């Protein structure tokens, strides 16, 4: 692919801004890693070798204890691979189990000394950040929660931009009655407080919907109430670009309206769009965390950073590790995104030596 020399220069400048660039690399790798979270943090092992056969249970169906020669009650219930690993080790022989780095899934309640409660970080038990109030691994919940949040915010950004850009461009390009009408609609629409709307809508949605469905509904509501801000920028940008000679030239040459908007005007307004992206991502992560914190976000027992924060604040003195982990994780993610945002803004700035303060 041949890049526009201007774009190439912007990318080069982005790379030169060390802080933003490394933040970007870090965040992207975290996101990619989180897509394979099942291989890193899971109660299902990477590999089981049982009587000479290699089994890879990570993405497979649940297996019962009977398949691994367990007897009695254990034969009929889904196998606990950590116990199986211990058993194989004690037996010696050729059987083995290789567990992921964190051998817990984000839902299971593990007990300590016969009691399900919050325990402090413990390397020996492989609870690297400790457990929450019902004995679930915090690192597992954070990582899976991060995955949901980041995927959610990417989808959120994409959708709001799609609607915002399309409508904003149309308003700017067509102008007149269309512009006037939509501007009024947007003014009214954007005055509806979205947080309350989410709370109201979510209080009537039955929990019988599956968790992915509920997340999708949450996404749709948030998008519905958040696309408006983008239209303002796109509208003014389009207004300006529309009056430029190249746009007029394209029109004279007989280009269709969609072609003028998407091929000519949009690429010239892209810098506005791009510089906003990281901040939209930040807003989305903050919003979903806040909703979870208030108890109106993802349904239990879905892992989420907001839910951990809530538990943490309720147990500040007895289990400080909960709030510490959740807080540090949240700050880290938001800082990374903000660094990236700053770097993009600077890279897309035509004046090389401007400093934003």
């Amino acid at each position, binding site marked *: 692919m041949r890049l526009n020399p201007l774009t190439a220069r912007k990318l080069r400048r982005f790379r030169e801004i060390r802080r933003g660039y490394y933040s970007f690399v870090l965040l992207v790798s975290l996101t990619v890693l989180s897509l394979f979270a099942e291989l890193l943090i899971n109660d299902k092992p990477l590999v089981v070798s049982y009587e000479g056969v290699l089994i890879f249970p990570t993405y*497979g*169906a*649940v297996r*019962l204890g009977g398949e691994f020669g367990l007897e009695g*009650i254990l034969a*009929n*219930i*889904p196998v606990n691979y950590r116990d199986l690993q211990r058993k194989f080790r004690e037996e010696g022989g050729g059987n083995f189990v290789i567990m992921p780095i964190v051998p817990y899934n984000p*839902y*299971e*309640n593990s*007990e300590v000394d*016969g*009691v*399900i*409660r*919050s325990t402090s970080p413990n390397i020996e038990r492989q609870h690297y950040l400790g457990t929450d*109030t*019902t004995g679930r691994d915090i690192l597992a919940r954070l990582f899976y929660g991060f995955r949901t949040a980041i995927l959610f915010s990417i989808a959120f950004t994409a959708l709001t931009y799609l609607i915002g850009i399309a409508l904003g461009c149309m308003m700017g390009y067509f102008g007149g009655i269309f512009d006037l009408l939509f501007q009024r609609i947007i003014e009214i629409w954007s005055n509806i407080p979205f947080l309350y709307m989410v709370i109201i809508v979510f*209080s009537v949605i*039955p*929990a*019988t919907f599956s968790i992915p469905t509920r997340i999708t509904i949450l996404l749709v509501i948030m998008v519905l109430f958040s696309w408006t801000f983008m239209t303002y920028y796109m509208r003014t940008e389009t207004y300006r670009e529309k009056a430029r000679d190249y746009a007029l030239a394209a029109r004279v040459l007989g280009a269709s309206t969609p072609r003028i908007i998407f091929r000519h005007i949009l690429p010239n307004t892209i810098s506005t769009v791009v510089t906003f992206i990281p901040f939209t991502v930040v807003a989305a992560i903050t919003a979903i965390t806040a909703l979870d914190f208030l*108890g109106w976000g993802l*349904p*239990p*027992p879905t892992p989420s950073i907001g839910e951990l924060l809530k538990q943490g*604040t*309720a*147990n*500040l*003195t*007895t*289990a400080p590790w909960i709030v510490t982990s959740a807080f540090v994780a949240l700050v880290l993610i938001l800082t990374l995104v903000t660094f990236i945002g700053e770097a993009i803004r600077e890279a897309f700035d035509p004046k090389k030596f401007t400093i934003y303060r």
Partner: protein
Amino acid sequence: MNKGYRLVAVLGICAALSFSGCGQDNGGDTAAESAAQTPGAAATPDITAEVQEHYRTKISLPPEVWEALEKGQMTQEEVDAKAAAGEFPKFFQFSTPDQIPADLNWQDGSDLPAFASPDAKQGGTYYTWIQDFPRTFRRFGPDANGSFRPFILDDVVMQLGRRHPNDTSITETGFRYYPGIAKEWALDKENATVYVRIDPEARYSDGEPITADDMMFMFFLYQSPHIQAPWYNNWYNRKYSNIIKYDDLTFSIKQPEVRPDLLFKVMELEPLPEHFYKELGPDYPERYQWRFVPTSGAYEVRPENLKKGQSITLTRVKDWWADDKKFWRNRYNFERVHFTVIRDVPKAFEAFRKGELDRFGASLPEYWYEKMPDSSEEVQKGYIHKDVFYNDKPRPTYGLWINQSKPLLDNRDIRIGIQHATNWDYVIEKYFRGDYQRMRTNSDGYGEFTHPTLRAREFSVDKALEHFAKAGFTERGPDGILQNEAGERLSFTVNTGYQNLRDVLTILAEESAKAGVEFRLEILDGTASWKKTQEKKHDIAFAAFAVSAEMYPRYWDFGHSVNAYDRAFLPDGSPNPDRKIKPQTNNLQLLAYPELDAMIEAYRASSDAEEMKQLAFRMEEFLYEDASFVPGFIIPFYRDLHWRWFRYPEGFNVKLSRNVDQFFLAWIDTGMKKETREAKKSGETFPPMITVHDQYRTE
């Protein structure tokens, strides 16, 4: 009388909630004030004429007529016609003292021991908390059933008499009562009539004397549609057949059927001040929203002691008339009870820890073991005392209520499978740390009326799988959940309104997955979840009924087919194919069996306690076989953390108490409060006090 069954709002620590506003403690003032506000406009309503008309015309329908109406065998028009023909007796009757039978055996409970502590000191302010500001001061009608109600009604008003909280024996005449507003009472068992003489000293907090007229008025009010409380309308129409006034202080109340608990249904009534409710009308909920009802009890709410949304203070009634009565002496010791609204339980705990609150209920293990363990500094230095008190009373029914009208759940094998797939023992052992106990049946704690040997089914994957297999669920799907040949998954929604107990369900769901059944959790707010359950839209509900200390368990509410469906059966006894589910009743399991109905009807009609016991046992066995209630846990105690100046009687509390506040036996030692505050500064310590009071422990 309280509404017998209420949903248990929250667990242990925050058993209290909601109410608000500015009360009027004087009906006369209010009338004058509202008249002044609307000069020339519509005059203040006056209910007097309506009351008199009601007294004149109200008739009492026999139980069989009610039943016929309910089953559709009789129409309202037919009943009206019969009433016009004078076939039914009058509800309100007036008579003279010489009509009182001479051979009555009057009782006044004076042979019972007092139970308050003679060491109690009067005075001081008790600082405590509520989670929500109350939504009304009304005692009934919309929103009145909030968690602040105990402090203006249930635990504070005197009633005609109160059941003795330690002597729980059952005599010839039923429970043992000590006098409240009544001075003495007599039971005429044959005629199902209780005679009561009101204590001539009895006064409302506004100084007005309490009379038999207030008792008559109570029936008028509870039968009135103005109060918008259908439960009251139904109960006071059907459970009583007449009230006869003999003189200003003496009256009798007759019930339609001779039952072992005749006394209970009369003694726990509370007369209502007729002068206060003068302005009653269709606008009752708004008009009386923030008016404090003059009380017979020790505490009133004065308008100046309210900060809406923030705090409420109860103040002791000046020269309370029952101050020196044997059973009321040394109780209600605090001069003031100050409630701060704190919405977060953890925040309330921190306020307690700082000494801003005097005590904190710690029945949840989290607070007892983690946040204030025995080893914590305040406990070890003797500033904060820890007490565990085992009570003995009917238990709230925490468990899973299975809706057997739903597909799959109508199969008994699946229900039994679910029983075996629900690991309550694990929750009790690991999460509640073995403190709580497994519930056996849904009527535990009724003493002799509780089935002696029945136990809930144990968790067993093998047995669960066996029963699921019988229902055709043999194969596990890729996620470990069982499927049948048609590819249906064995998956059910479990809804609850107990935010505090969400972890319990999370653990149960993890465990049940081992047996191949999926519980999808639906954690709603209390009202939303209860509404769903009452409309019978649940698959499985995790809920509990609060039960008052009644003599015997109720089965009609929970098990009779009239509470499950409209016209459950055809005349030949077979299930009606067009039957409709009946919402807003307590038959959450949709039980509809003619043989169970027959037992319930026999039980309801019986006047013999022994026969009722046998029937109760047979019904419990029937319900066990039906397997649509999974008994959960009971909490056999309550636990309290309190500063050392908050004092309790020896033995801590009474047998029937449901929480610390119920009987108002504690007191504040202001001297000790000062001493403790100073000791905290100087570092002086006291012996630590961690006490278990297990004198009433049953097992």
